[in-house]
């Protein structure tokens, strides 16, 4: 009998192999963030130029790879019956979900690296507290991966495609990423602040800012993300179906 870690490692490798050769996924995970860095960093679409653009694009990278891409891929795996077959093997639900999450984190970190290198090339100079930035990115990864897997495991593949893409665009435009919550009407802004997208964007902005953020400032977005991560994980474990 193989160990749980052996099976998780095998599944992580399998997911990575599939992710890194899927054209649509690569477009979503790498090309869109690159285009956004160029669009937001070289224009005045967002005040603050490339310095303001990088945390926003990093948030979009995390959202794209961990949530949208993950949900769509897993939804179609369910539809094809591949997951149904895996349910008869020694691969457990936890092995599957952990393998997917780890592979997604790895791909997201690659995407983040590409965005950072491009940002540096465009004149962005990282400041703030790097470990906190990485911590926020990882927390964001797990949060969105959990919600992506919940969505993929609970809805039909076609519905997953529609909901994941719809949520992706909605969160980018109105979820506190492109337009900061402070720029929205007060009632709306307060609501948006508690969305995971806004919390991640705010956390990354503060963590990577030249002027180091205080712990208290970072605590709220970290707490918001953690709550979303916990709820998403519980829902994914509870409602994820193999078929």
């Amino acid at each position: 009998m193989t160990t749980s870690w052996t099976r998780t490692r095998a599944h992580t490798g399998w997911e990575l192999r599939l992710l890194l050769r899927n054209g649509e996924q690569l477009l979503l995970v790498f090309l869109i963030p690159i285009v956004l860095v160029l669009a937001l960093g070289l224009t005045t679409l967002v005040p603050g130029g490339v310095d303001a653009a990088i945390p926003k694009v990093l948030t979009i990278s995390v959202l794209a790879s961990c949530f949208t891409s993950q949900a769509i891929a897993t939804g179609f795996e369910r539809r094809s019956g591949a997951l149904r077959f895996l349910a008869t093997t020694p691969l457990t639900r936890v092995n599957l979900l952990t393998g997917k999450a780890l592979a997604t984190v790895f791909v997201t970190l690659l995407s983040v690296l590409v965005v950072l290198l491009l940002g540096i090339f465009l004149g962005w100079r990282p400041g703030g507290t790097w470990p906190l930035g990485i911590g926020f990115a990882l927390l964001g990864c797990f949060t969105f991966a959990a919600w992506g897997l919940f969505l993929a495991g609970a809805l039909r593949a076609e519905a997953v495609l529609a909901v994941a893409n719809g949520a992706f665009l909605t969160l980018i435009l109105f979820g506190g990423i492109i337009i900061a919550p402070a720029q929205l009407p007060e009632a709306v802004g307060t609501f948006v602040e508690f969305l995971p997208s806004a919390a991640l964007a705010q956390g990354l902005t503060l963590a990577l800012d030249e002027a180091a953020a205080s712990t208290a400032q970072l605590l709220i977005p970290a707490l918001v993300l953690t709550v979303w991560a916990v709820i998403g994980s519980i829902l994914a474990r509870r409602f994820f179906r193999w078929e």
Partner: protein
Amino acid sequence: MTPPALQVTDLVVSYGPTRAVAGVTFAVSAGQITALVGPNGAGKTSTVEVCTGLRPATSGSIRLFGRPPSDLAVRARIGVMLQLGGLYPTARPLEWLSYLARLYSDPADPGSLLTSLGIDPKTSASTRRLSGGEQQRVKLAAALLPKPELLFLDEPTAGLDPAARLDLLVALRRLSTDGTAIVLTTHQLGDVEEIADEVLVLVGGRLVASGPVADLIGAGDTTSFRATAGLDIATLVDALGSDYQVRETRPGRYLISGLTSPQLLADITKWCVATGVQATEIRAGGRTLEDIVIQASVDDL
């Protein structure tokens, strides 16, 4: 005492108000090939799905090697070929099997397995680009990969050409000789007669007949033949006498109940000559599984 490879007791599977399996009990021992047969919707696939842990039983008990289907140690000892699912569409056969092999402690060699089933391990085609028969063989390879002690095959011969079908039957017989317990569902009743040790006939979720193939098909004095549909069987009844009953069980399939004898065959042939009927597949002395399944379905209605 070693528990049977599979023990199903009073299994009930319901989907809302619909009862797909209604109190089925059977056991499968090591080295035994057991076929679940029956019309569509009889509960065959539901039974397999519950036994493989894909679906919970509404009530009843399932034990594989004495343990529940959800037990990980059990899942490492079974191989499953599903009717729907079992392939990763964008993966090549060898990479899919190589990944699966890493989930087991002592798997078969994926390349050799594919080769033995007539699939080129070096093929660059993804499984979705393969023909239906090739996809079936890759699914079978995935089922055989763990060197299973208990093998579930749901419609394994669907989509296979005659030669591949025969190869599969030979392979299954070899596996059972080596001690693998096999549970298969199929509509190919001729295949079942050829390789199954035990047959379970399910109709409407109920087990309506079961036993060794020889006992089932040998039971009763029945002679059957095929001919044009809608023949005037009253003239045949007259020709055979009152000791025999004749029914057209389905279009073109005639069943004669009564003592089988050389005289009966002669009388049938004589009647065919007299009425200009070209009979085919005359079968004397027993029913076919097809007869049994059809009769059971008719009785159920």
